[in-house]
């Protein structure tokens, strides 16, 4: 019986999500115009839902101080208080408001993860495409460097680097982005390798097109799909990496709220059936799913499939 009730709740949640997605799509179509409007019309409900979630996260991140009922680090009451007003989601192990921490977590976690992933992609895909296009010694050199970096387990390598260089947010972003960019490089290179042997690249080369133009105009558009798919996942892996690093004591510094550390702090409660750690984990999961729904839609558009 309880299982049926749970299933019912899940069904209700999905229906509400899709309805929200539909409302959002209708509203977005109404306010947009031109190419964007055309594109939005083709968006499936899941993608619309994804966009809505991302938009909400962005708004929450920007207006965190306005929305949050308390200050980020303020100790407001006893520890582990139940879900009652004024603490909508209870309090954490130090008596800070859980809801407030989640909201500030959006700002810190999403901001850091986005910057890291973007940087990793900028470095990784440019070098990867370059290596595949130029080939020869350039490819050999970059591939060997990446091989070496990738052959060292990433968690231990980042721990080493962060211990050596210190643990500010900037070093955190740089270290994770550098390590992650090697993965992007591998993928970009292998995708581009299949493309550079195509006849139209040959033709473009014969036309005498420059390297930069060749990469950005001919190769990148055709390599975009797998890269975009990878972006959606890498974004999520960065959360996990930060969570693991916070666990080792070199992640985001307290008392800054960040979802990865929040999961870690409360994780043990789940083995007693307490759902508290599901809140920050759910926040990460929802965003990951949303981002990847949007990515799927873009992937679909990029593939040129009509159905």
């Amino acid at each position, binding site marked *: 019986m309880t299982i049926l009730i749970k299933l019912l709740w899940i069904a209700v949640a999905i229906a509400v999500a899709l309805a929200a997605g539909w409302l959002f799509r209708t509203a977005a179509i109404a306010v947009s115009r031109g190419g964007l409007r055309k594109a939005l019309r083709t968006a499936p409900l899941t993608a619309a839902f994804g966009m809505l979630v991302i938009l909400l996260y962005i708004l929450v991140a920007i207006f965190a101080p306005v929305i949050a009922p308390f200050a980020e680090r303020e100790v407001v009451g006893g520890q582990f208080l139940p879900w009652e007003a004024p603490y909508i989601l209870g309090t954490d192990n130090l008596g800070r408001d859980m809801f407030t921490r989640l909201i500030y977590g959006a700002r810190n976690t999403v901001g850091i993860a986005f910057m890291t992933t973007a940087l990793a992609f900028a470095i990784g895909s440019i070098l990867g495409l370059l290596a595949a296009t130029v080939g020869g010694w350039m490819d050999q050199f970059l591939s060997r460097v990446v091989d070496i970096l*990738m052959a060292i387990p990433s968690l231990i390598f980042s721990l080493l*680097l962060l211990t050596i260089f210190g643990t500010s947010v900037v070093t955190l972003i740089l270290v994770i982005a550098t390590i992650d960019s090697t993965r992007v490089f591998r993928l970009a290179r292998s995708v581009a390798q299949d493309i550079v042997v195509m006849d139209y690249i040959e033709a473009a080369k014969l036309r005498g097109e420059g390297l930069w133009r060749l990469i950005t105009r001919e190769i990148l558009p055709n390599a975009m799909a797998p890269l975009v798919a990878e972006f959606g996942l890498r974004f999520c892996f960065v959360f996990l990496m930060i969570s693991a690093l916070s666990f080792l004591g070199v992640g985001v510094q307290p008392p800054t709220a960040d979802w990865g550390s929040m999961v870690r702090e409360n994780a*043990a409660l789940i083995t007693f059936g307490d759902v508290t750690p599901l809140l920050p984990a759910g926040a990460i999961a929802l965003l990951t799913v949303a981002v990847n729904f949007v990515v799927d839609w873009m992937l679909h558009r990029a593939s040129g499939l009509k159905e």
Partner: protein
Amino acid sequence: MSIVWEMIFKRLGLGLLTLLVISVIIFSATELLPGDLAQAILGQSATPETVAAFRKELGLDLPAYQRYFNWLFGALQGDFGTSLANKRPIADLIATRLGNTLFLALYAAAIAVPLSLTLGILAALYRNSIFDRAANALALTSISFPEFFVAYILIFVLAQSGLFPSMTRMDPNTSLGEALYRAFLPALTLTLVVTAHMMRMTRAAIINLLASPYIEMARLKGINPMRVILKHALPNALAPIITVIALNLAYLITGVVVVEVVFVYPGLGQLMVDSVAKRDFPVVQAVALIFAAAYVLLNLTADVLSTLSNPRLIHRK
């Protein structure tokens, strides 16, 4: 085919060079880390005199390059030395743990790879259907949770009811069936962690090709969609799929320290983290080189398979 053999030999040679470079990087990194084994072991009770005496006994008072070359000459003769911390031969320390690590990695891969390929292909076939969305959402949710959290949930659901053990204790007498049973939860945790990545890449790589003229052609000929994907799209989508599989297999070998900790599974990851924390340099080197070698070999295999899957690469002009 000769180009493939040439590639394999060249890459194996390069692989050895990679290992050499990595041994230098790891050595320098452990040197750059503040503190050394003597301080790490004596911890709060260290005094300058005891640290100095300890260093002398361990040979840590020698200059860095000398220690590196001593290690290197030993390693080249197949002697990886003894752990600085407990004087045990490194080969003994590593042997059983390496076996455990490989067992768990293979176990997880045996579930995860077929599962994710099947799901990926099905998702591409029924793209944008409810099945596709649900499989995606589930897979994505499972990788959004940190590993230790997935492990805790599985323990809560499957171990506390007594279905599976919450600890994975292995000894040499454990039979294969028993080992598979005991290691089920860690293997399942790892499966959940790696499946999404491989599945999504399979799906993306196949969908990426579906608009190509030759697929269009095949479809227009009236071949059924499953056959189009398996016979026409999949072979050409193999390169990125293989790359991602290789990456994830490497991860299963080198990156599972968290799962090892939660399930009390004596693998190489825990040994590596402990040895880094205690600055036990010969052990760190040995484990890092095993990890690196695993990665290099998997990577080489992936590249060879990718090359074989694309005739244009074999006959590159």
